């Protein structure tokens, strides 16, 4: 109950933000929306599915390039079309990859996905006639629901209509993911994570379940990629580099991969902290790495995991206190 109220409060705060916060901070919040969507998908694969992908950023890149391509090939700059093209691209990319990758787990899965991600990076770089090479491709400002919204300049557009659109997308996609992980499919997925052999015996189609997780996470990643592409106006190959995938992993673990909202929390914290940190010091990577190391060692549940433990501890203590005050019943 508490957490539901908290969630509503947060959403309300996010909805009210454009009226209160200066433009710069709003442009920082949009990556938060995008990464929350991407990580919701990623965590399906990692938190619920137990598969650590070090190449997930390739779908983010696919989404951004799909957005750029929908303009350069189709000549239309519509956000809905961009999303549709991105989803198609994600499906085309992820279905064959998923069929291959679902055979593996653990390190092999990690190395395989890392290779896939770097392969895409290489392709985006080398085939410059198609992809613009290292300068990438331009993502123009799209129409939203068909509306031109000419009265806004780029910043006004980003901090106004686009902001709300992304927020709504986040809520909708979050809800869909919530239903998915609570469905029988979600149970099958976590079963195949916890004990694949036993799950097989129980009739869970482990490989199929993993394939679906891979594909769904790819689609979420691509949607986030479109948002990022519109924000910067650019789709560039570095989106697919393996360290970008590493950052996705980091944000997920930071927030808490065992909680549904953990990754979203992680992305918010990471984005805010990184923005501040980058302004303060050149050595922000060190602190990011240090934070990641400390969390992995000491607080594997991440921020939300740590909060949960605190809460349970408090509850446990309350129980123990209550017990002490009541005199023990004699067993005789």
């Amino acid at each position: 109950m508490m957490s539901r109220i908290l969630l509503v409060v947060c959403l309300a705060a996010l909805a009210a933000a454009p009226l209160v916060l200066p433009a710069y901070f709003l442009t920082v919040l949009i990556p938060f929306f995008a990464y929350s969507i991407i990580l919701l998908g990623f965590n399906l694969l990692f938190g619920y599915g137990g598969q650590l992908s070090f190449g997930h950023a390739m779908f983010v890149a696919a989404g951004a390039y799909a957005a750029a391509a929908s303009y350069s090939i189709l000549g239309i700059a519509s956000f809905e079309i961009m999303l549709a093209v991105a989803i198609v691209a994600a499906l085309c990319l992820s279905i064959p990859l998923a069929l291959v990758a679902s055979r593996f787990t653990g390190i092999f899965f990690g190395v395989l996905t890392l290779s896939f991600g770097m392969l895409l990076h290489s392709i985006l770089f080398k085939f410059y006639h198609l992809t613009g090479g290292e300068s990438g491709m331009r993502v123009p400002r799209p129409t939203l629901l068909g509306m031109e919204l000419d009265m806004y300049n780029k910043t006004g557009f980003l901090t106004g209509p686009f902001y709300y659109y992304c927020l709504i997308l986040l809520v909708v996609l979050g809800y869909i993911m919530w239903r998915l992980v609570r469905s029988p499919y979600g149970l099958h997925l976590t079963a195949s994570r916890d004990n694949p052999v036993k799950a097989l015996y129980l009739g869970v189609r482990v490989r199929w379940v993993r394939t679906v997780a891979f594909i769904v996470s790819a689609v979420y990643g691509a949607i986030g990629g479109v948002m990022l592409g519109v924000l910067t106006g650019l789709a560039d190959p570095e989106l697919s580099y393996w360290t970008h995938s590493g950052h996705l992993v980091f944000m997920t673990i930071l927030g808490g991969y065992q909680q549904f909202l953990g990754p979203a929390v992680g992305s918010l914290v990471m984005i805010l902290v990184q923005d501040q940190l980058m302004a303060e010091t050149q050595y922000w990577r060190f602190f990011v790495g240090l934070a990641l190391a400390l969390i992995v060692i000491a607080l594997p549940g991440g921020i939300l995991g740590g909060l949960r433990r605190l809460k349970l501890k408090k509850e446990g203590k309350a129980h123990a206190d209550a017990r002490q005050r009541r005199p023990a019943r004699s067993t005789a």
Partner: protein
Amino acid sequence: MNFLTNVILAGLFQAAVLFLVAAGLQLIFGVQRIINLACGSVYALGAYFGITFTTWAMSQGLPPYLFPLALLAGGLIIGLVGIPMERVLRLIYRRPESFQLVLTFALVLMIQDIIRFFWGADPKQLGSLAMIYGSVKLFGVTMPVYNVMVIVLAIIVAAGMAYFLGRTATGKILRATAENHETSAAMGINVSKVFLLVFTLGTALGTVGGALVIPTGVASLEMGVELIVKAFAVVVIGGLGSMKGAAVGAVIVGLLSTLAVFTYPEVDTLAIYVIVIGMLIWKPSGLYGRIAT
């Protein structure tokens, strides 16, 4: 004929570099089952520290033609950074392997900025020291003598590792531990000491590799992150955990990428990834790997 000689010699040089890094990766994985994403980072550390140490040594009177010794010494010294790294990794040995991967990624980030802090963000070079031995004409191809030395050294290291692992008592202990941690411990092997030794040795292979290669190139902040992908390619092709695989994989990747540079420069990195993916699909344990999926 000339073309082929050029490709082979250039490819062997690439392979030598890759082998040194991959050997460290293989050793650590073989015994400890840890994939060390930071293997490229320690390579970079070796390069930077190698420059600093050699420059210092020469300012203290070391004659220029002895510079490889300074590089070797510098590489070994900074290789000791493996000890604190192992201590940190030790804390999560029992965790799922994904976490080990993540922790080594954290190390990658930290080491990159540590390098930036001590050496700055500009690429660093060791001047023209590599040319001190001049060039030699091998099979009709001119090559700097130093490059040949690097190839020879990699071969010596490979042979040394083979001997160490195959013939010495310590080597046997390492192989036993690699087979089965619990049984080895039950037989009285101090597994944590073994882990410390292996990790430090693996790190030192990387740092020495970085140090020895630096005279022919430039040290930059991205070198660690860039090298990982090629190192992984070597390890996947050769087979995870196999030292022989490291050597064979290094030769394959080295020759292939050089061949690509000579013929279709556009596709050199692409070709490597395609081979990696192909290998993972066809034979995930690689050519000599012993790990089942």
